[in-house]
C-alpha cells in the first residue's frame, strides 16, 4: 500500500511540476519536462509493481530489469553483435544502397518511374516481414537470412523516398543549371541530389526502425543460439520476463541511437534546409 501511495504521489507531483514548468514557458522547460515525465513514469511502474505484488511473469519492476541487464552484459553483447552488427548494419547498407542506386538508374526513364512509383508505394504498405520464413529457408539460420530480410524491408521505402526526392528540385533551378550548360551528371550532383537530401534522409530514418524489426522478427523463425530475437522468444518460453525486458531495453537503446546517428548526419548534410536552419 505504501508503495502505491508513494508512486501515485510522485506521479501527481511530477505532473504538477510539469504543468508549472510548461506555464513558465522557458527554453529549458522543453528539455526538462520530458525527462521528469519519463522518470515519474518509471517510478509509477516500480511503485505499482511492488505495491500490487505483480508477479514477475506479468511485469517485472524497472529495478529488477536493471539488475538483470547489468548482470548479463556478456550475453546481451553477444546478442547485440549477432543481431545488430552482423544482420542489421550490412542489410541496412545493402538495402538502402541498392534502392538509392536503383532510383538513380531509373531516373532517366520516366516510363519506369511511372511504373515503379505506385508499385513501390504499395510494396511499402505490404507486410513484407512475412518473407522472413522464406529467407530463413533460402539463406540458412545464420545472419545472412536476417540481413536478406533487412535488405528487402529497407528497399521500397528508400526507393520511393529517393525517387520523390530526385523530383524535388524546381523547374526554375533546373533551367538555371541548363543555362550554365551543365550536363546531366553535373545537374544531378550539384543540384538534384542536394535537393533530394531531406527526402533521402527521411527514407534512411524510416529504414532504421524497419531494419531492427526485420532482423529481430526474422530470428523468431530460426537462428543459431544467439541473437536478440532468439533471446526474446526463448526467454518468453522460460517465463524469464526480466531478461526479455532487458533485451527490449537494449533494442530500444540501439534503435534510438541508430536513429539519432542518422538524424545527426542529416543535420550535417542538409544544414541549408529551413527545418534545420532555425
Amino acid at each position, binding site marked *: 500500500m505504501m508503495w502505491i501511495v508513494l508512486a501515485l504521489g510522485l506521479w501527481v507531483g511530477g505532473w504538477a511540476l*510539469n504543468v508549472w514548468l510548461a506555464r513558465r514557458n522557458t527554453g529549458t522547460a522543453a528539455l526538462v519536462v520530458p525527462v521528469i515525465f*519519463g522518470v515519474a513514469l518509471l517510478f509509477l511502474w516500480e511503485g505499482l509493481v511492488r505495491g500490487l505484488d505483480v508477479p514477475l511473469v*506479468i511485469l517485472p519492476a524497472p529495478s529488477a530489469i536493471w539488475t538483470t541487464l547489468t548482470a548479463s552484459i556478456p550475453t546481451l553483447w553477444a546478442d547485440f553483435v549477432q543481431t545488430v552488427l552482423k544482420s542489421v548494419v550490412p542489410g541496412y547498407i545493402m538495402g538502402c544502397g541498392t534502392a538509392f542506386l536503383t532510383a538513380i538508374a531509373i531516373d532517366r526513364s520516366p516510363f519506369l518511374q511511372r511504373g*515503379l512509383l505506385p*508499385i513501390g508505394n504499395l510494396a511499402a504498405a505490404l*507486410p513484407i516481414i512475412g518473407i522472413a*520464413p522464406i529467407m530463413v*529457408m533460402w539463406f540458412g539460420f545464420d545472419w545472412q537470412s536476417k540481413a536478406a530480410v533487412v535488405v528487402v524491408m529497407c528497399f521500397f521505402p528508400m526507393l520511393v523516398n529517393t525517387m520523390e526526392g530526385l523530383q524535388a528540385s524546381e523547374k526554375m533551378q533546373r533551367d538555371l543549371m541548363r543555362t550554365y550548360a551543365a550536363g546531366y551528371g553535373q545537374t544531378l550532383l550539384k543540384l538534384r541530389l542536394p535537393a533530394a537530401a531531406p527526402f533521402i534522409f527521411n527514407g534512411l530514418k524510416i529504414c532504421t526502425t524497419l531494419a531492427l524489426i526485420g532482423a529481430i522478427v526474422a530470428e523468431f523463425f530460426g537462428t543459431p543460439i544467439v541473437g536478440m530475437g532468439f533471446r526474446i522468444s526463448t526467454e518468453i518460453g522460460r517465463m524469464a520476463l526480466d531478461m526479455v525486458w532487458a533485451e527490449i531495453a537494449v533494442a530500444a537503446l540501439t*534503435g534510438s541511437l541508430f536513429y539519432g546517428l542518422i538524424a545527426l548526419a542529416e543535420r550535417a548534410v542538409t544544414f541549408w534546409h529551413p527545418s534545420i536552419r532555425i
Partner: protein
Amino acid sequence: MRSILPITTVCTAIVAIWYLGAVFLNAQWERDQAERAGTEISWAQILPATMAQERPMLPAPHQVAIEIWETTVEKRITSNRSLIYHGWITLSATLLGFAMGVCLGILLAVGIVHNRAMDLSVMPWVIASQTIPILAVAPMIIVVLYNIGIAGLIAKASISAYLSFFPVVVGMVKGLRSPDRMQLDLMRTYNASAWKVFWKLRWPSSLPYLFTSLKIAIAIALVGAIIGELPTGAQGGFGSRMLNGSYNGQVLIIWSALIGAAVCAGLMVGIIGLVQRVVLRRMGIAR
C-alpha cells in the same frame, strides 16, 4: 490512366523475373535428384520439372495461384484449411486493433494540442517510441496478456492498436495545428469557444492528415496482427499459417499466406484512399 502501361510492364517484368528465379533456384534440387539416381538430366527436362516441385525453393507464380485458388474457392469458408478463414481471423484482429488505436491516437492528439504540459511531456516520448522496434515485443505482449487471462482476438488487437496509434498521434497533432494564425484569429474575433474552434476549424483542417495517417496505421496494424499470431501457434490466421508452413517446409502455404496478407493490405489501404477521396471532395478540400 497513362501510367497503366508502365505499371503493367513493371508487373510483367516482376513475374518474368520470378519465373526465372524459380527455374534457377529449383534447378539445383533436380540435378541433385538426378545425380542420386545416377542419370543425366538436360535443361529440357529440368525446365518443366522446376515448375512443378512439391517443395520448391521458390514456387512458380502459377503454383502459388493454384494454391490460393484451392484454399479460397474450393474449400468451405469454415474449414481451417481455407485461406479466407485464416484471413478473417487476422483481419478481425487488425480492424479491432485499428479502431482502438485510431480512437486512442485521436484522443491523445487532441489532448496534446490543447494542453501544453501534455505536449511537452508526452510528445517527445511518442516520437522516441517510433525509433523502438516495438514489433519485436509483440510475442511478449501476447504471452503476458495470456497470463492475465486475455487471449486470442483482444490480445492480437491490442498489438495492432499499439502499433497503429503512433502514426495517428503524430499525423493528427500536425493536422490539428495546421490552421494558421489568421484563421485562429478569425475564430477569436467571432468569439468562438475552444470547443467551437476545435469542431469548426481544427477538426476539418486535420482530416487530410488523418487520412494519410490512417493509411500507414492500417498497414502497420495488419503487420502487428500477423506478428501477434506467431506465438499463438495453431489458433489460425496468416501468421500461424506462415509459421506452420515454415516448420513443415510447406513453401506453398507460406507464399499463399504472404500473397493473401498483401492483398488484404492493398485492399484496406485502397478502401481508405477511396473514403478519403469521397470525404475530402464533399468537404471541398480535395486537390
